[in-house]
């Protein structure tokens, strides 16, 4: 009995050590374990790092030509989001500026604008926005809303004072100041919004791609790969655990880089507690290994992982609820999202990282991750036992 146990440990340890050798023999896997988590997030973060979209070009059609219309233009130009590049005489001319990709918005002030306001009516203007990018529209909307309010309250106080002198005792200055506060991502920056989630996605994909490729390598002709990639102990589970432990050992440093140093470098929100975040991500990493083992069922050759897994990055980004909130997803996709560790990993991590949630506040995500770890490891075990192993042994006989 004791001998059996010690033999088991020995096998376990042998597989663990040999897996290191295999990983470092395989440039493809090294790329997934090192280049992907270390270089990719930096490139990615740099793309969005300017965070805000400022000074988007617009043209103005001022058919009113009064001091008030010029004031409106000036105030809009003063906004961070907008830059007035010039005046156009009519709509076709303004459209031409849009068509030539010189401007992305048009402010149209109709004739009689100031007169209407003077009469105590509402002066209507129209803002046309190019809709190729929603973030530009968002900036325009912010700017026009602010200007509308500012100029509005200025005129309102003035008007009310003229009409009802007594009211001035009450309506002096701002009647009711309105404060808006962005939580989590306090600058409302684009990088700080998307990247923390993407970091977790990158980690998730690194593990699955690497495990998938390792699975493919085991089925290849050893002469083609240049070494014997088979590395299994008599017990299926023991070799799975040993290999996963090897991968986790390797990925430990990249994980710390991903969740601590990348946010530090790019000034992303970092409201979470580092140790709690690590504790939270542990089941995700374990579950991702399990998913990787299950995925090995379909990988017949190393390079297939690129064809059959890379596209999931796009799918998982959507499923994580980062772009489109989970509660608003169609039911089938919501169900699909629940089976991937990345969904819960991203959701929990951004709550912790940006909103400063504690581990107990993301309890449900944490529990889901452990459940998924169990489920994927069970499926992975079945795959290894009944699909991968028979194939490997079948092949070995063929080539010996």
């Amino acid at each position, binding site marked *: 009995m004791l001998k059996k146990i010690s033999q088991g440990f020995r096998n376990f340890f042998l597989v663990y050590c040999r897996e290191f050798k295999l990983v470092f023999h395989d440039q493809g896997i090294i*790329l997934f374990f090192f280049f992907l988590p270390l270089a990719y997030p930096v490139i990615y973060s740099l*793309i*969005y790092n*300017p965070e*805000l979209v*400022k000074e988007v070009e617009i043209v103005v059609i001022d058919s009113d030509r009064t001091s008030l219309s010029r004031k409106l233009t000036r105030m809009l130009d003063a906004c961070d989001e907008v830059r007035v590049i010039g005046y156009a005489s009519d709509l076709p001319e303004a459209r031409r500026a*849009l*068509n030539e*990709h010189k401007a992305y918005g048009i402010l149209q002030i109709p004739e009689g604008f100031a007169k209407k306001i003077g009469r*105590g*009516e*509402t*002066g*209507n*203007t*129209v803002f046309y926005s*190019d809709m*190729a*990018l*929603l973030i530009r*529209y968002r900036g*325009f909307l912010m700017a026009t809303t602010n*200007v*509308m309010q500012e*100029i*509005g309250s200025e005129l*309102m106080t003035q008007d*009310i004072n003229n*009409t*009802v002198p007594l009211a001035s005792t009450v*309506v002096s*200055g701002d*009647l*009711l*100041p*309105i404060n*808006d*506060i*962005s*939580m989590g991502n306090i600058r409302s920056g684009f990088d700080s*919004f998307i990247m923390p989630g993407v970091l977790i996605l990158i980690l998730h994909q690194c593990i699955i791609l690497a495990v998938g490729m390792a699975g493919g390598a085991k089925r290849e002709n050893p002469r*083609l790969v240049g070494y014997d990639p088979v590395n299994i102990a008599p017990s299926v589970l023991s070799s799975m655990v040993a290999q996963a432990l090897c991968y986790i050992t390797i990925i430990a440093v990249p994980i710390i880089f991903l969740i601590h140093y990348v946010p530090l470098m790019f000034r992303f929100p970092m409201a979470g507690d580092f140790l709690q975040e690590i504790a939270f991500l542990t089941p995700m990493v374990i579950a991702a290994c399990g998913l990787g083992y299950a995925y090995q069922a379909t990988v*017949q050759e*190393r*390079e297939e992982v*690129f*064809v059959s897994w*890379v*596209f999931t990055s*796009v*799918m998982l980004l*959507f499923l994580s*609820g980062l772009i*489109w*909130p989970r*509660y*608003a997803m169609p039911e089938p996709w919501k169900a699909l999202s629940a089976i991937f560790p990345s969904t819960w990993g991203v*959701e929990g991590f951004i709550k912790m990282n*940006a*909103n400063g949630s504690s581990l107990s506040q993301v309890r449900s995500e944490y529990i889901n991750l452990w459940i998924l770890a169990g489920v994927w490891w069970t499926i992975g075990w079945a795959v290894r036992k009944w699909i991968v192993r028979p194939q490997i042994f079948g092949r070995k006989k063929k080539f010996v």
Partner: protein
Amino acid sequence: MKLEKGIFAIAVRSLIQIVRRPIYWFGFFGIPLFMFLFITSMMESGLPHHIPAAMVDRDGTSLSREVTQSLSALQTVDIKQTLNSFTDARESLQKGEIYGFFLIPENFQADLLAGREPVITFYTNMTYFVPGSILFKSFKTIAVYTKAGVAMKIANSAGADAEALAPMLQPVNIQSRGIGNPTLNYGIYLSNSFVPCLLQLMIMLMTVFSLGQEIKYGTSARLLKMADGSIVKAIFAKLAPQTLIWWIIAGFMLAWLYKFNGYTMQGSWWVMALSEMMFVLAAQGFALFIFGVLPNLRLSLSVCSLLGILSFSLAAFSFPVQSMYGAIGIFSYILPIRYNFLIYADQALNGIGIYYSRVWFAAYVAFIMAPFAMLWKIKKYMKDPVYAP
């Protein structure tokens, strides 16, 4: 066995290779079609409605309840909770139960009527951009609305006719109109760029994968012999059947986006069809160029994956090139999808003359021509195939 030669024989061989392996079925048909359906159906409703939010009413007067009621009446907001303190609301937000909350301070009504200028504050969770932004807009509308109502009340109490004052409360109105997408449909905005970008990813991967397989298994020498040693002939015959498949898929994509999903199509179908057909060739050309630079199956697949996935951000579908760092933004222009996106915006969304898109079409041609510069190297490697894992 006699070696069959000629373009036709190679093309048939290429087709048989595709039919025989499931991975090709997935890559050519399964994945693109599934993702078309996935991306478009995800955002079917246009914009998320009924965003969970909370109300923190520390005042509890008729005025503060009015605010709560007008918030609840909005289609965009769903007041899930009525809480008593900021701390409760923050915790609820941290747990992800709500995306934002509206806070009315103590003695709100009394202070307001006495002119002590109470402050309304609303909090939105900008970690989630879309619901956060929509909540922001809704909250702001209600806050401004409340302010106007109060001003009217005060003027009324000072003896002015509230009816006559109404326009005075909003002297200037700037109405926003989104050209081509007036309802701010998120699907129109995102699907039209993400779906072709996914197609680009798959075209690049499959082009490199199928060519790399020839080198990996040493069949490329035979392929070259079938083409009488002409690399142009060999590559053309090998990839032509794939081009046909991709054209069918791209044609379906066009119909899927603009017909079945009814996304804005203000321009000419023919111009868009031309754009998609050239796009397929450009993506193949781009992949071929990469394969020429790195004729190693795994390395070129890695580069194609990297660029293919980075394209989703780098091609500036959501964050404009003009706002990126110059040194990064410039890479946007080495991606075929960038031009596909620009043509889509010009033609389908804005429906402007093809003249304005001439440069983007010319860029496609550059991508189609690019691999010719690398064919010599591909030929060298095809002659003596060496597999490096």
